[in-house]
């Protein structure tokens, strides 16, 4: 009996301690005035970046110190948890990274994120406007972007030299296809590849022509001339034998990394964030890859679009929202923040002032600058005013699903008629969203 009572007391003490700890966790401002924030992200590298920015912030603002409590979760897992916590109104972090594909889900109804417009304002003039617009609804900014994600051409100079092609003279896709036929003839290798299970590449081709998946009101509109041109061009290259659907279905896959790494393909149109994949996964083509603007469809059209991305948001249940918003906008949009985004993450920062800073763009120790033949910032400066927006709206996840799982492969591999496929898909998408 006595022993049982002792056990009971012990159990009660443990429970009480648990409560006491949970109570303690709610303390957000420490004795020295440091404010702590809960931050969720789904990329390990992002957390390194945030830690660095936290240190710099605390040095510069000794009277308004912050402390970030960073949790890294797997991509889908983190977004699910965030959605559940917002749905239930309990347990959400203060600051959170949200992937561009998931962002529209959180814009449904009344967004549970804080209005970031004012916090962004001091930096807005220096930033690529289309990237800020991407994470907005009804003119209010809800998220702060990491990078531009400008689409460019990655050329394998070794293959092109073998075929006597000067990639810098390629200006239109027609010229690109001609060059591709020569490459095929002289080297037997593919000129480029088509993305079959994701829409990064298609978005780039649409964006070049000023097209999009939705109209100005956010209503799906995939039966357009721009869409036809983009798909027809990719399909034509496949039919000519100078392109093929990427191994693994998409360039951003292990199979395709291996394929590019073995020097089987002469070029690839993809967002600049693919640089880090080159550096991490394709060591054998180091010193052979050049970055250049994409060819354009027609004279006078643009040569890039911003694709992919991560928004950082402040949740409306956060404490000291103003401080959180100020920190997030500063960390991602200031020159200091942009420099670190480039150095730590290898992204093309949204703040264009960074692009002009020789200390950053010519840093001899930077692994990205060492890897590539050309300087990515030269290309960025060249296409500065040509980076068009592909909008991410409520309908986007549904539309992407149709392209990822059906339309692209039907057109590329099953010879489906482009217009009929698009018209049928448009009808089904409208039905789903009704």
């Amino acid at each position, binding site marked *: 009996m006595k022993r049982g009572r002792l056990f009971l007391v012990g159990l009660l003490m443990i429970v009480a301690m648990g409560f006491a700890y949970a109570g303690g966790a709610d303390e957000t401002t420490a004795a020295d005035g440091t404010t702590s924030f809960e931050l969720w992200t789904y990329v390990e590298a992002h957390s390194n970046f945030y830690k660095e920015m936290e240190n710099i912030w605390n040095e510069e603002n000794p009277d308004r110190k912050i402390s970030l409590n960073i949790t890294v979760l797997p991509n889908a897992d983190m977004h699910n948890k965030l959605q559940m916590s917002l749905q239930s*109104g309990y347990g959400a972090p203060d600051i959170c990274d949200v992937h561009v594909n998931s962002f529209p889900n959180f814009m449904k109804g*009344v967004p549970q994120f804080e209005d970031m417009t004012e916090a962004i304002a001091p930096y807005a003039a220096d930033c690529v406007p289309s990237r800020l617009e991407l994470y907005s609804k009804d003119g209010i900014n809800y998220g702060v972007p990491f990078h531009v994600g400008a689409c460019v051409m990655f050329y394998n100079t070794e293959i092109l030299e073998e075929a006597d092609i000067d990639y810098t003279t390629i200006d239109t896709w027609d010229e690109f296809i001609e060059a591709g036929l020569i490459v095929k003839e002289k080297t037997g290798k593919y000129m480029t590849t088509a993305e079959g299970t994701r829409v990064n590449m298609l978005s780039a081709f649409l964006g070049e022509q000023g097209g999009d998946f939705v109209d100005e009101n956010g209503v799906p509109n995939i039966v357009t001339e721009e869409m036809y041109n983009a798909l027809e061009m990719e399909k034509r290259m496949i039919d000519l034998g100078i392109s093929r659907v990427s191994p693994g279905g998409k360039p951003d896959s292990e*199979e395709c990394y291996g394929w590019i790494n073995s020097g089987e393909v002469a070029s690839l149109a993809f967002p600049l964030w693919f640089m880090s994949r080159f550096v991490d996964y394709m060591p054998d083509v180091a010193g052979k890859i050049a970055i250049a603007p994409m060819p354009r469809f027609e004279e006078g059209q643009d040569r890039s679009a911003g694709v992919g991305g991560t928004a950082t948001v402040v949740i409306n249940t956060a404490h000291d929202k103003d401080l959180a918003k100020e920190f997030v906008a500063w960390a991602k949009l200031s020159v200091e923040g942009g420099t670190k985004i480039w150095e730590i993450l290898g992204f093309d920062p949204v703040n264009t002032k960074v692009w002009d800073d020789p200390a950053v763009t010519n840093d001899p120790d930077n692994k990205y600058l060492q890897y590539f033949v050309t300087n990515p910032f030269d290309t960025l400066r060249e296409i500065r005013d040509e980076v068009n927006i592909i909008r991410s709206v409520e309908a986007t996840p549904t539309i992407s699903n149709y392209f990822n799982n059906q339309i692209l492969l039907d057109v590329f591999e099953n010879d489906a008629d482009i217009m009929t496929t698009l018209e049928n898909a448009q009808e089904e998408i409208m039905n789903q969203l009704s």
Partner: protein
Amino acid sequence: MSSRFKSFLYSQDKAPYVFICPFVLLFVIFFVYPIISTVIMSFEEILPGQVEFLGLKNYEKLFSDRSFWIAIRNSVVYMVLTLILLIPIPMVLACILDSKLVIGKGFFRGVFFVPVLTSVVVAGTIFRLMFGELPGSLMNRVLAFFGHEPIKWLFSYGTGYTALLLLAVWRWTGMNIVYFFAGLNNIPTELYEAADIDGAKGLQKFRFITLPLLKPSRTYVITISVFAGLRMFTESYMLWSGNNSPHEIGLTIIGYLYRQGIEQNEMGYASAVGLVLLVLAMILNLSQLKVSGFFKKGDSIE
């Protein structure tokens, strides 16, 4: 302890309720309540802080939604094929492993059972690599040995389903063998002795004794396989490394529920999908049990 408390615990009419209380509580909290709220949610559109009653709109949308029908077709096809493969094969294997003629029984039982212990996530990933599309993947090397061109396994329906079914067979055969073992152990040996005396051959014994007397085990395995087939998700999610697959060949009902509810934040619509799955599984299972005579008195499963 007071005597009143003691007498309460020992009383024959009240104590049983105390004992089943934990189960009933868990059942109500984690089963009845979620089902009721799923039914309610399926008539609503749900966003943080704003819930709107839609009536039957979610269901109307569902029945004209092509992806949903693809998901139903995929799940049903998968279920039927797993039934065809995962009932006879384990049953025969169980009989073989149970017979006195086989040497190293313990070893083979272990070999068949090991896959059951592996995680579906690990198995799915390994199968994805095995069925890779590049010439270097295991299955393509096997094909190359026979002089065949490499195949993009996971990009078309037939080959994709081959991979999915192989995964299912590899993983569940051992489990079903165990169920059939239990059934075999319940068959009285006297019946076989009597058959021996009557001069029955091995196959005759299997046909007239083993098969009929394994019926309870078979009913049980079919029942759980029907539901396991319909609710399959992880296998296809891992095989196509995500919920998206070419031409939606890997999309299952649960996959569609996940896509709508979690990936696209349409909780109400996803609830409707879930309820349709529940109804479908109930109809199939209840009719199967009815046909097998489960509800008849005096012919119950032991």
